[in-house]
């Protein structure tokens, strides 16, 4: 790790570290909120920070077709923080407050939705994001082919889809590979799999014969690679290379990132620290200290500050309004057109 640091400017290393640390401590606060009985379910991203943060930092963020679209899975807090999400909005989602900007208190923790960054709603069914991503990248491809010389000088938007290794057993994953690689109609899409080797309690090796999931992409002539998703520098450089390739060529690319799952699947499996797994944050932190980019005292101060900040946010969100019962009828249809048959 230490030798990798020099491959990126110091300020980018520190930017990545800061967001990784923020993400980890935020997730640990969410787990505590669950254990305090102030949230019903926790699922999240500890162990995926080294991949998720560079993914968010490198994207072309904004709303609409000139910007990247995100079809994320439910371990994407690092990416959202890198995009600029305020941590309070993650806590509001965890505590199902009406102020939660993703769902207004309707959805689980980490099921984010931020139209201002083209982050479409995260879903609980695994793998479905691999097919909805086809639609946004299809529209991007069409816009791209219509673009004239001057507009083609702009940064070309892409679609980014993330998911876990267990979800690649779903047919939707195969659909994504097939549809994104149709000859002459290739899609500008970054397909990623964060392989933590687990699907709830079932190990990848028990269910999958392929050595690398990335090999499946090769069968469709999709450029693919396997990276160490616990190494933020390697992740950053690989993602930048693949995003540049997609923006330039309009063709798909596939990245399998080997990551850890540090607190189990979710609160359903206890959300306890898996000590045998590699911790990307501690490894990176150690390398940054050894390289004297930061010192241990700074780290201690930063950790204490973030922990205190998130605790205070938690206390503040506790006082926020919860959804009212009557609101179940809101947004069944666009512009609140009536969807209740009793009122037809």
């Amino acid at each position, binding site marked *: 790790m230490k030798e990798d640091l020099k491959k990126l400017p110091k300020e980018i290393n520190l930017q990545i570290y800061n967001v990784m640390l923020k993400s980890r401590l935020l997730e640990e606060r969410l787990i505590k909120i669950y254990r305090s009985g102030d949230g019903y379910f926790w699922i999240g991203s500890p162990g995926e920070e080294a991949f998720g943060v560079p993914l968010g930092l490198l994207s072309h963020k904004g709303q609409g077709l000139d910007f990247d679209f995100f079809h994320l899975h439910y371990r994407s807090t690092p990416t959202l923080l890198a995009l600029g999400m305020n941590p309070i909005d993650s806590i509001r989602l965890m505590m199902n407050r009406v102020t939660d900007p993703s769902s207004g208190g309707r959805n689980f923790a980490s099921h984010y939705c931020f139209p201002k960054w083209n982050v479409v*709603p995260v879903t609980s069914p695994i793998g479905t994001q691999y*097919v*909805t991503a086809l*639609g*946004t990248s*299809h529209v991007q491809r069409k816009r791209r082919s219509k673009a004239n010389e001057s507009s083609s000088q702009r940064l070309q938007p892409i679609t980014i889809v993330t998911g876990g290794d267990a979800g690649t057993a779903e047919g939707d994953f195969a659909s994504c590979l097939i*549809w994104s690689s149709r000859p002459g109609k290739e899609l500008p899409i970054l397909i990623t799999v964060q392989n933590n080797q687990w699907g709830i309690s079932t190990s990848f090796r028990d269910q999958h014969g392929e050595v690398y999931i990335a090999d499946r992409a090769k069968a469709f002539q999709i450029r693919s690679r396997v990276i160490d998703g616990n190494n933020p520098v390697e992740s950053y450089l690989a993602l930048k290379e693949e995003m540049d390739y997609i923006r330039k060529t309009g063709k798909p690319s596939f990245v399998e990132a080997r990551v850890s799952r540090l607190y189990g699947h979710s609160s359903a499996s206890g959300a306890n620290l898996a000590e045998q797994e590699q911790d990307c944050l501690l490894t990176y932190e150690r390398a940054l200290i050894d390289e004297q980019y930061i010192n241990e005292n700074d780290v201690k101060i930063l950790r204490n500050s973030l922990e205190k900040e998130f605790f205070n946010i938690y206390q503040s969100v506790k006082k926020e309004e919860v959804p009212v019962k009557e609101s179940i009828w809101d947004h069944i249809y*666009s512009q609140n057109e009536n969807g209740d048959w009793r009122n037809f």
Partner: protein
Amino acid sequence: MANMAQALRMALHYGETHFGVEDIFGEDVGAPLGGVFTATQGLVNAWNTPLDERGIIGMAMGIAMTGTRCVAEIQFVDYIFNTIDLLKQAGNTLWCSNGQYEMPLVVMSPVGAGIHGSIYHSHSFDSWATRLPGWKVVLPSSPIDAYGLMLSSILDPNPVLYLVPKALMRVRGEELIPGETKESPLQIDAPLKGRELWRPQWPSGLTSYQVPIGKSKIIKPGKDATVITYGRHVFCCIQAVKRVEEQTNASIEIIDLRSLYPYDWAAISESVNKTKKVLLVNEDTEVTNFAEHLAYRIVSEFFYILEARPHILSGKQIPGIGLHPHLEEATLPQENDIEEELHKLLNESP
């Protein structure tokens, strides 16, 4: 007069030239076939997909998430079942996102029996569809309604499941679609040979004629009983009612629902309040059939004025529709079944 396939084609053409429909896609939807029922022949934005229903629905959802309008087709509704969680997701995206992500898409799919389609080309999906909150569900029975409902569906900001009775695809309408000429149907049918060079001659006077989603149509008025139906059973009911009226002094009202959800309760309640007797007819399987919901509501709101219990005729609760005509006829409501049921209804008294 145009048939339903031609009416759909004209509506989709109007949609792509006036309403911004940029993608019309599905299995065999593009050239050279233009759909197995030819409903998408000659359209500029029609294209073929892999044989992957989940991919089709996912693609449509993603396109809709960008705010772009599209019409996706599932070739036969029999093959929509493996997409049901995606349909659920499309229906709940606006709700889950607390109103932030609309899903303006149309999924079109031929539905029902009547073409000797055997086990996997005869399914109904009506009742399943009404259990997908967030969707609107329409089912036309005439070419002019097919045209008007398609344009309304395209313009609707919500997901619309557009079910087409496949047995009616080749049935000509009794009314001209606004802008249609007598020559139009032939001018938009692709020839069997030389399709590569062929271009349709679309009627120049097509309009934005729409049938509002949620509005039914009184096929014929009556005062002694109400028949509530939709799709191809509108025709079966017309024939059965004609015979019953000839045999009795009764006059029977027929309502073509056209929209299953939202449905036209105002028309239903006005009719039932007048006739006090109701028969509901459709071809979906009978247990937890959509008609049961309507019957429940009719009983709940008109219990003290009804002069007979609501009658329902629907498909038998069996796993499929057999190929031999005897099997299909025994499974689904036929004209004589409707006639018989109407006699029972008319003879029933409190």
